[in-house]
């Protein structure tokens, strides 16, 4: 029987059941916010706020004076400088008169984009269309630069060098990584040994990898010196030839990132249900047919996700070019992050932020397009 005569504690209801709420209970009642608050606040302060702040830098010329920073708003001059000013050759490459190969390629890309947009009009809402328009515009712009520089024999700028690292690099890394994963998923002994070894490069400090690769790739004193013949006076050297330097850079970057694809694809391969493979074997499928018909379709969703993650990381390449060749012969191996970092070193914060923003734009559009048209496509089709 509730003791009717209970004294009424201050703030308590007459029934004397609801005592003052201990701070623990209050905390629990608001736990909804307390759980997510720290993460959101940290990201707001250290990621979102700086991103906006960086816009201010990109739009103005900044000078260091006795009493701190002086901002002079110049709107889009820093950005325009990259496209029109004397930096254009550094950023886009020498976009000279387009050779016929270049024009052909450029025209083909335009046609493909227009046809793709036309085909999509029936499929998606207007938001989707805007997304597609942006992607198409970016693709045409890049095609124009490729046509103007690469296919017309002119040197390319940091934009295309970064794209080269991302596109060609990720493709090479994906093929080798998946191949290794397939090998390791076969019934061979010592699998764990290889798994551990292959994982190590991913974990080594990129800086350490940079110097290790610089030592290994050094023609005069490095291990491959005999291959290049006794350092004859006019021996060919990879660090003097722009394309060779880029390829060596990409190979060293792959050395570090192939393990990432190897580990994730191995996990995917090992998660294909045993029954399916056995059923196919009983049905008379050969090894190749099993992989092509049964295993590959089931790991494609994971594969595209892994590729997307790798692309996001690939855009940020900075340590290797900085250490191995300091931007390479001229600026041929310079990635956009490095481009921005070198400008920062000269305390030209405005242009540096502008280049960083262009990199952000390039990354977002490329990754978003890849995500929407490839990853979601695969996930929808292979509704597992």
């Amino acid at each position, binding site marked *: 029987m509730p003791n009717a005569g209970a004294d009424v504690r201050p703030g308590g209801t007459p029934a004397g059941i609801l005592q003052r709420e201990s701070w623990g209970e209050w905390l629990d009642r608001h736990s909804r916010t307390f759980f997510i608050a720290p993460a959101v606040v940290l990201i707001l302060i250290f990621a979102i706020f700086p991103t906006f702040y960086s816009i201010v830098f990109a739009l103005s010329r900044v000078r260091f004076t006795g009493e701190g920073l002086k901002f002079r708003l110049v709107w889009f001059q820093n950005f325009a400088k990259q496209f029109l000013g004397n930096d254009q050759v*550094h950023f886009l490459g020498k976009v000279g008169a387009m050779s016929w190969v270049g024009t052909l390629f450029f025209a083909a890309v335009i046609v493909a984009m227009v046809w793709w947009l036309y085909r999509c009009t029936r499929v998606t809402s207007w938001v989707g269309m805007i997304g597609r328009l942006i992607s198409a515009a970016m693709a045409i712009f890049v095609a124009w630069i490729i046509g103007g520089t690469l296919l017309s024999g002119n040197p390319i700028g940091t934009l295309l060098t970064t794209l080269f690292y991302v596109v060609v690099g990720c493709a090479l890394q994906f093929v080798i990584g998946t191949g290794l994963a397939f090998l390791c998923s076969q019934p061979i002994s010592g699998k764990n040994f290889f798994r551990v070894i292959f994982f190590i490069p991913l974990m080594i400090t990129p800086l350490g990898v940079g110097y290790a690769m610089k030592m290994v790739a050094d023609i005069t004193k490095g291990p491959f010196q005999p291959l290049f013949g006794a350092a004859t006076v006019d021996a060919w050297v990879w660090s003097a030839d722009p394309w060779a330097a880029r390829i060596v850079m990409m190979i060293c970057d792959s050395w570090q990132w192939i393990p990432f694809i190897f580990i994730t694809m191995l996990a995917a391969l090992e998660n294909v249900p045993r029954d399916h493979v056995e059923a196919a074997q009983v049905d008379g499928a050969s090894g190749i047919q099993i992989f092509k018909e049964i295993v590959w379709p089931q790991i494609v969703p994971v594969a595209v996700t892994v590729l997307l993650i790798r692309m996001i990381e690939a855009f940020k390449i900075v340590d290797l070019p900085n250490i191995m060749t*300091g*931007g390479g012969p001229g600026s041929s191996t310079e990635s956009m992050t490095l481009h921005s970092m070198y400008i920062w070193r000269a305390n030209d914060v405005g242009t540096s932020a502008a280049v960083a923003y262009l990199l952000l734009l390039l990354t977002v559009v490329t990754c978003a397009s890849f995500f929407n048209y490839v990853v979601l496509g695969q996930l929808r089709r292979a509704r597992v």
Partner: protein
Amino acid sequence: MSIYKKSLCALSAAVALGAFSGVSMAGEFDGVTVNILTRPGYVIAGRLAERGKEFEAATGGKIVVTEVPFAEIFPKIQNDWSTGTNAIDVGVFAAGWGVELDSAGLLEDLTPYVEKDTKLDLNDIAPYFRDFGQKIGGKTKLLMVDGDFQMVYYRKDVLEKAGLQPPKTWDQYLEVASKIHGQDMNGDGSGDYGSCIFKKRNAQSYFAIQTVAASYVQTHGTAEGFHFDAKTMKPIVNNEAWKKAFEVYKETGKYGPPEELNMDIGDTRGLFKAGRCGLLIEWGDPGTLQLDPDAAKVKGLIYAVGAVGSTEVLDRATGKLVPVTKESAPYAVDGINYAPFAAFGGWAGAINAKIDQKKKDAAYAFLSYMNQAAQSNVDVTIGATGYNPYRLSQLASTDLWVKAGMPKELAENYLGAINGALNNPNMASDMKIPGAQKYTGVILDTELARYLAGEITVDEALKNIEAGWEEVTEDFGRDSQIAAQALALGTPGN
């Protein structure tokens, strides 16, 4: 907790507390810590740390030397001092960079300290460094620890074997380099290189190109300068003189190591110490570096050429190259215009204006300690330190150098070359105006690297440099730059 654990805690706490009290010989700067920021490696930082220990023993002031890569010294100091973070008390960097920091009012004026300082013996410092190196706007803002300018070096034995004279002009430099290129210079059977110049991007390669260009462009003495037109601040780059300099610079590549575009000063020094280089463009260091143990193959064989000039000079009005005459090149010597380039201006120490007085005194005392003849005369002779002579007492007699292990004949050549350059009225000064680091370190260096790599032609490179320099001038304000340039190139002694 077991007894053992308790005692361990007590011990470590005691040790920690002991560290705090910093018991050291009571001295003038007891408890004061001076943070110095400079480039890494034993070259500058190492010597500072060792002298720092001696300084601490004498005065109790603690010297902490922090090393950051070369390209980050200037931005870090400028940010640290301009925003008042004051993590750095003293910056040891290129004398030329001091101007930009001074224009933002960040450097402490050392004139009062110098007057009170008895042990410094200011006049012993060579005039160029005393007035150009240490003074900004007429006031002493820096104390030199090293006197730098670039010279051409040659392998005496190799040239004599080939019956060649040391080059006097850049064309002769190319000729000599081409003749000896491919010969075996260190007896290891493989062919070696006619000339080794560090051309890697972002690694001080922009100084070497200025050494070549100075003799083509500067004809009427140091005050004329060879970067800008003093009155309009218009860059005098886009002309035949700089074009010739660029072409000569690229031509040296034919007789250099194939990896030259990716070699920084460390790599080229590795090469010439292994005896693989016939000709060099370098600071004062090869003189002493050849005495190092791992340079046994070239000990006493690397001689210096006072300066290398040119028979054609720039006519500023037309922008064309004209042969050397009395009017076009008053300071020319038998038809050759020399303009030794004080590249980098030498390493100097500057003090942060916004730190407390006690720290300033301790910092000044240390810099003066480093600069005094007693210490610097020893430091400049040690090859490893990378300090080059800047005091008259060091340049007058050769016995100081012979004592350090240099053969007499080499010492005479080395000091002769340095004195010749120092006393040359047409000496070219390094750029000493705000933005110097961006004018040369970023714009000139990037365009040069891209030209050497064949990405752009020489005309495009010069056009880009001109546009880039104009933009920087706009940034800082044309008039303030004109004033700064006038101050920087003011005739010595004012």
